[in-house]
C-alpha cells in the first residue's frame, strides 16, 4: 500500500519516523485536529505577537527592542507591573490559604457535609464579570463592607472603645485598597476550584497512613506537617501553578474594579489596543513581558519549592 514498505535508503533518519507514523496511523489521525487547532489558533498568534513586539515602525522595523525600552521608561507600565505582582501574590496567598482551610474542613465528617459542600462550591459557576459587579456593590462608598465597618465602630463605641471610621470608596481610593478589592473578587470566584483540587489531594491520602502516624504518637500538628503536607504537595503545586497563571493575567475584574485608578498588566495591554492609543506594538511587547513574568514565577516556584526532578506538570 505504502510507497515505503521497507525502510528507505535516505531514511536512516526519516525511516524510523515514517515507520512509527505508519504503525500509529490511528493516533496520528486522532491527534491531527488538536495539533492543527493549537498551531493555527494559539501558536501562530503567539509567534505573531512576539514578531509585532519587535517590529514597531517607530523603532525602525524588525528587529528592534525599542518597544521594550519604551515600556521600561513608562511610569504607567511600571505601575502596572508592580500592581500585577502585588495582586497576583495577594490573590495566591488568599486563595491557597483559604482553599486549604476549606478543603480540610470539607474533608472532615460532619452533619450536613453534603449540603455545606454544595453551598461552599456555589461560586464555581459565577462568571468573572459578575464577581466584579458584586464587589462593586460590596466595596463602593455606600457599600456593604463600609456598612459592616460602621456597625463595628458602633459596636466598639458601646464597650467604650472609640474608633472613628471614615467610609471610603474602596475601588476608587487607589493604592492597596483598590488592589485588595481586586484580589478579594478573584479569590471569591476561584476558591471553589482551589478547594476541589486540594480536597482531591486529601482524599488521595490513604487512611492507613494517617492511622499509622496516629499510632506512632504524632500530634495533630505533627501529622499535618510531616504526613499530610508532603503527600499533598503535588496537589498544592498544581493549584499554585494554575492559579498563578490566571492571577498574573487578571483582566476583567481589574478592568471593572480598578479601571482607571490602578492599572495591572492586563488592563494596560488592553489600553494600548484601544482606540485612543491603538498601538499593537507596545501592546504586544507588554504581553511578552507578562508571559515572561508568569514563566519566571512558575519556574522559580518549581525550583525553590518543588525541587528539581519533581515537576508535576
Amino acid at each position, binding site marked *: 500500500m505504502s510507497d515505503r514498505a521497507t525502510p528507505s535508503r535516505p531514511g536512516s533518519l526519516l525511516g524510523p519516523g515514517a515507520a512509527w507514523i505508519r504503525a500509529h496511523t*490511528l493516533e496520528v489521525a486522532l491527534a491531527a485536529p488538536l495539533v492543527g487547532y493549537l498551531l493555527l489558533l494559539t501558536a501562530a498568534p503567539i509567534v505573531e*505577537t512576539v514578531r509585532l513586539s519587535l517590529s514597531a515602525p517607530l523603532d525602525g522595523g524588525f528587529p528592534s527592542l525599542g518597544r521594550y525600552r519604551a515600556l521600561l521608561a513608562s511610569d504607567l507600565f511600571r505601575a502596572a507591573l508592580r500592581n500585577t505582582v502585588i495582586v497576583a501574590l495577594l490573590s495566591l496567598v488568599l486563595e491557597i490559604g483559604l482553599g486549604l482551610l476549606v478543603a480540610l474542613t470539607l474533608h472532615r465528617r460532619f452533619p450536613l457535609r453534603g449540603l455545606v459542600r454544595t453551598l461552599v462550591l456555589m461560586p464555581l459557576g459565577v462568571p468573572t464579570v459578575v464577581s466584579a459587579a458584586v464587589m462593586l456593590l460590596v466595596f463602593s462608598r455606600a457599600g456593604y463592607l463600609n456598612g459592616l465597618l460602621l456597625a463595628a465602630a458602633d459596636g466598639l463605641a458601646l464597650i467604650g472603645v472609640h474608633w472613628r471610621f471614615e467610609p471610603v470608596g474602596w475601588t476608587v481610593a487607589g493604592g492597596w485598597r483598590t488592589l485588595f478589592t481586586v484580589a478579594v473578587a478573584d479569590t471569591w470566584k476561584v476558591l471553589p476550584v482551589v478547594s476541589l483540587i486540594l480536597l482531591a489531594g486529601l482524599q488521595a491520602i490513604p487512611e492507613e497512613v494517617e492511622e499509622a502516624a496516629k499510632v506512632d504518637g504524632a500530634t495533630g500538628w505533627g501529622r499535618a506537617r510531616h504526613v499530610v503536607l508532603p503527600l499533598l504537595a503535588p496537589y498544592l503545586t498544581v493549584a499554585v501553578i494554575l492559579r498563578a497563571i490566571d492571577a498574573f493575567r487578571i483582566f476583567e475584574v481589574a478592568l471593572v474594579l480598578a479601571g482607571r485608578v490602578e492599572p495591572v498588566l492586563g488592563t494596560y495591554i488592553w489600553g494600548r489596543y484601544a482606540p485612543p492609543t491603538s498601538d499593537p506594538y507596545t501592546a504586544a511587547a507588554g504581553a511578552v513581558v507578562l508571559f515572561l513574568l508568569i514563566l519566571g514565577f512558575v519556574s522559580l516556584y518549581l525550583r525553590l519549592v518543588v525541587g528539581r526532578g519533581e515537576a508535576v506538570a
Partner: protein
Amino acid sequence: MTVRARSDGPGAIRRVLFGAWVTACVAAALFPIFVLVMVSVAPGAALFGERPALIVTAPTFRFWRAVVEGGDLWAPLVKSLTVAVLTTIGALAVAAPGAYAIAKLPVAARRGVVVSLLVTRMFPELTIGVSVATRFAQLGLTDTYWGLALAHVTGVLPFIAWILVGAFEAIPSDVEAAASIDGASRLATLRRVVLPMTAPALAVAALFAWLYSWNEFLYARLLTTSQNTLPLQVFQAIDRGTRQQMAAVAVALVIPILGIVAVLQRHLRPGALAGAIRG
C-alpha cells in the same frame, strides 16, 4: 489539624467553634449572591445613604421588568447558551481524540507535550484574542455563533486536553490489549472500552468547557459588534446601567449556573481531577 471529627475530649466547645467556622464559610460563599439578588429588587432610595439595607423591605420588580422588556436578557441568553453548547461539543471532539493519542506517547514526549500545553496558557489571552479576532474578521466570522464558539474552543483546549491526557493514561494498556485479542477493532475498543472508562473525566472536561464559554468575556468582546452575550451584557450594565439593572442581569447570568453546579458537583468528584495531577 485532625482530619475526622473527634467525639472525645473537650469536644463541645470545639464543635461549636467548628460549626461557627462552617457557617462563616457558607455565608462568605453565598453573601455576594445574596447581595446581587437584594440589589436587583431594591427601590432606588435603598441604595443611597451610608449603610445599605441588608434586607430590602419593599422590593420592586421595576428593574427586572425594564431589563426583560428592553430585550437585554432573552437574546443574550440564547446566544450564550448556544455558544456554550457548541463550544462544549467542539472542545471535546477535538481534545478527547488528541488527548488519547498524546497519552500513547513515550513518557518523556508526553511530559513535553503537557508542559507546552501549560506554557501556551501562560501567554496573555488578550493578544492571542486580538490576533484570532483579526483573522476571524477576514473570514467573516465576527458576530456569528460559530466564530465565537471556535474562539472559545481555542481558549479551553489546553486545559481540558491536559485533564484528559491524565485520564487516558490511567487506563492500563492490558485492557485495550485484551479487547483486541477478543477481536474488537481499535475503533470499537475505543468506543466500548476506553470511552466508558474515561466518562467521569470527560464529564469534568465538558463542565469546564461549558463554564468557560458561559463566563467568557474577552473573545466575546473582541468578536461581537451587535449581539451581546450575557457577560457582555453585564459589563455594559456596569458601564451604563443603574446598579439595579446591573444586578438583575447578573442574577440572570448566575441562576442557571447555580442550578447546574448544584446538580453536577455531586458528580464532580475531586478524584476526576486527580488524573490531571498525576499527568
